[in-house]
């Protein structure tokens, strides 16, 4: 393990902090983070009082981490993976290298073959303190034909930096429902990598909700490495003030008969900037691939910005793929309709924003998580009028 850390540290030293000169980091510059002398820190006393985001007995099991340190577990006991193979690519992904070199605690869980977990496992990661960084490292191994829901929540207070890596291995026929709620402190930096490896017939849904942090970047790498496996990637990013929210996804269709369904929706207000950079690779062997990728964005102010870059890279002819992206504003006809029935302008706007987000939120299967995310989204979006007022008399 220490050898791996050393090699990853060397790799990070070679590559350096990412800047927009690297294609994968075209829209996000982490150079300012390089200037900070980040330190690790023990959890401060009472640091896990983030009760509003905890599920307690509603979760099958709940693990709490503060500043990268395991603090406590509640609920059912969990098994550790027998085999710690690594799928997150630290040789090519610089921030995964940084995590690997400095990796701290995290959830290492194995769901035994054939086990259907009754409920969801919640992992909460809290960061506390200016200048504190943490490198949580999770490995979730789901055995053949096992089923589980995993929920990750990122939160905290202050100008800390979380650099998390989560690896999910879905064995043959495994079914995984994964949620990742990023609602970090508005002063914090967040970089997250989720690497999903799917074997034959596995079926994974991964939902990335990005609401917090001053600057955040989430990268989701999916390898459809077994025939007939499928992935659904849902994303929702809502930014306000000067938030910078970068979403990168890579879906690699390696084997035949795999499906990927991706829908990312962005809501950007004030001076926020959102990015969707989604790449789909279909390998020569991956015949009968079905792939759909869509990114839709809603801009609520004239100074909000979104960059949308869906990319298809197809290396065989026997595929069904489509992708697209849209950027729009609040529909003035819909706004007028709601107001013409007596609903106030700001409330009408909220209704329309939440309707836009609803497409992602409504289909979340785990009810307490869905409601938690709905609440978090409501709190994250400001309850005020848009900068550009609707032309009314």
């Amino acid at each position, binding site marked *: 393990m220490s050898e791996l850390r050393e090699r990853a540290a060397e790799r990070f030293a070679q590559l350096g902090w990412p800047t927009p000169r690297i294609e994968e980091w075209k829209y996000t510059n982490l150079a300012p983070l390089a200037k900070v002398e980040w330190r690790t820190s023990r959890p401060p006393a009472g640091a896990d009082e983030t009760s509003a985001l905890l599920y307690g007995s509603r979760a099958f099991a709940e693990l709490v981490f503060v500043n990268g340190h395991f603090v406590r577990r509640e609920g059912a006991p969990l098994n550790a993976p027998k085999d710690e193979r690594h799928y997150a690519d630290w040789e090519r992904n610089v921030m995964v290298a940084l995590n690997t070199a400095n990796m701290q605690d995290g959830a290492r869980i194995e769901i035994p073959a054939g086990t259907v977990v009754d409920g969801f496992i919640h992992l909460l990661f809290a960061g506390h303190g200016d200048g504190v960084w943490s490198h949580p490292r999770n490995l979730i191994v789901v055995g053949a034909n096992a089923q589980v829901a995993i929920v990750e929540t990122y939160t905290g207070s202050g100008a800390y930096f979380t650099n998390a890596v989560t690896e999910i291995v879905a064995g043959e026929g495994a079914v995984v429902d994964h949620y990742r709620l990023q609602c970090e402190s508005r002063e914090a930096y967040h970089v997250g990598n989720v690497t999903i490896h799917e074997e034959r017939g596995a079926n994974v849904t991964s939902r990335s909700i990005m609401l917090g942090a001053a600057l955040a970047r989430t990268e989701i790498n999916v390898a459809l490495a077994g025939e007939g496996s499928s992935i659904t990637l849902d994303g929702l990013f809502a930014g306000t003030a000067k938030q910078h929210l970068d979403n990168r996804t890579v879906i690699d269709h390696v084997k035949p008969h795999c499906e990927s369904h991706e829908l990312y929706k962005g809501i950007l207000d004030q001076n926020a900037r959102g990015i969707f950079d989604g790449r789909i690779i279909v390998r020569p062997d991956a015949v009968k691939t079905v792939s759909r990728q869509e990114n839709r964005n809603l801009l609520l102010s004239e100074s909000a910005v979104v960059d949308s870059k869906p990319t298809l890279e197809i290396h065989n002819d026997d595929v069904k793929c489509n992708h697209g992206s849209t950027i729009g504003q609040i*529909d*003035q*006809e*819909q706004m*007028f*309709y*709601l*107001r*013409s*029935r*007596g*609903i*106030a*302008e700001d*409330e*009408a706007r909220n*209704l*329309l924003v*939440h*309707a*836009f987000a*609803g*497409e992602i939120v409504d289909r979340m299967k785990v009810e307490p998580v869905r409601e938690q995310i709905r609440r978090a989204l409501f709190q994250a979006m400001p309850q005020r009028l848009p900068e550009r007022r*609707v*032309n*009314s*008399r």
Partner: protein
Amino acid sequence: MWKRDMLEIRNLKAGIDGKEILKGLDLTIRPGEVHAIMGPNGSGKSTLANVLAGRPKYEVLSGEVLYEGKNLLEMPTEERAREGVFLAMQYPVEIPGVNNIYFLKAALNAVRKHHGEEELDAIEFLQLAREKMKVVDLDESFMNRGVNEGFSGGEKKRNEIFQMAVLDPKLAILDETDSGLDIDALRIVAQGVNALRSEKHSVLVITHYQRLLRYLVPDFVHVLAGGRIVKSGGKELAEELEQKGYDWIEAVA
């Protein structure tokens, strides 16, 4: 008995995109009256409806509109609605993701709050909604869909009338609610509006055709041409228009 005017439009000039469409329109509606405005395409019928409801992009160039003695044109759209002005739209927009029943409850409670009345809870509201739904023959399953989402043209119009029935406006404006409706739907719409009629409620029916007026009999009929009311009369004027068309009116105007 003297009654305060419900709506008084004086020399209204208005348009869109810098183009003047209403060129000095006068109209007075008193409580309890049903007025029909008829006219050829492009005469300014929809402009009038949209200006009264406060649709963005429509500009008032001059003139005034008093609603119960208050300056209607100064009120934001939602305040007009809360004060009791309702526009049944010609092309109701679809709003996927906004639940029909949630939306209407929010609207009704906004109106009630405005009048210092207690807001209805979910059960009370549903009771009221069910009762009003029967009037327009809408199935309850519509209520849990997105606003107008996937509704047929006729269903959208009936939904407008349903909303009107729930919100119980003092002044209902129907903007070509009859267009595209078959005879059964037309009867249902008329039935919905007739149910609202009382000495406190006024209705302004804007239409191109006379057929709705067979079921929804107006007290007054006005002919709008070239942005002005060129002729007013009783319900028999509608029949005359149906027989003769609009050409003779345009000749007069």
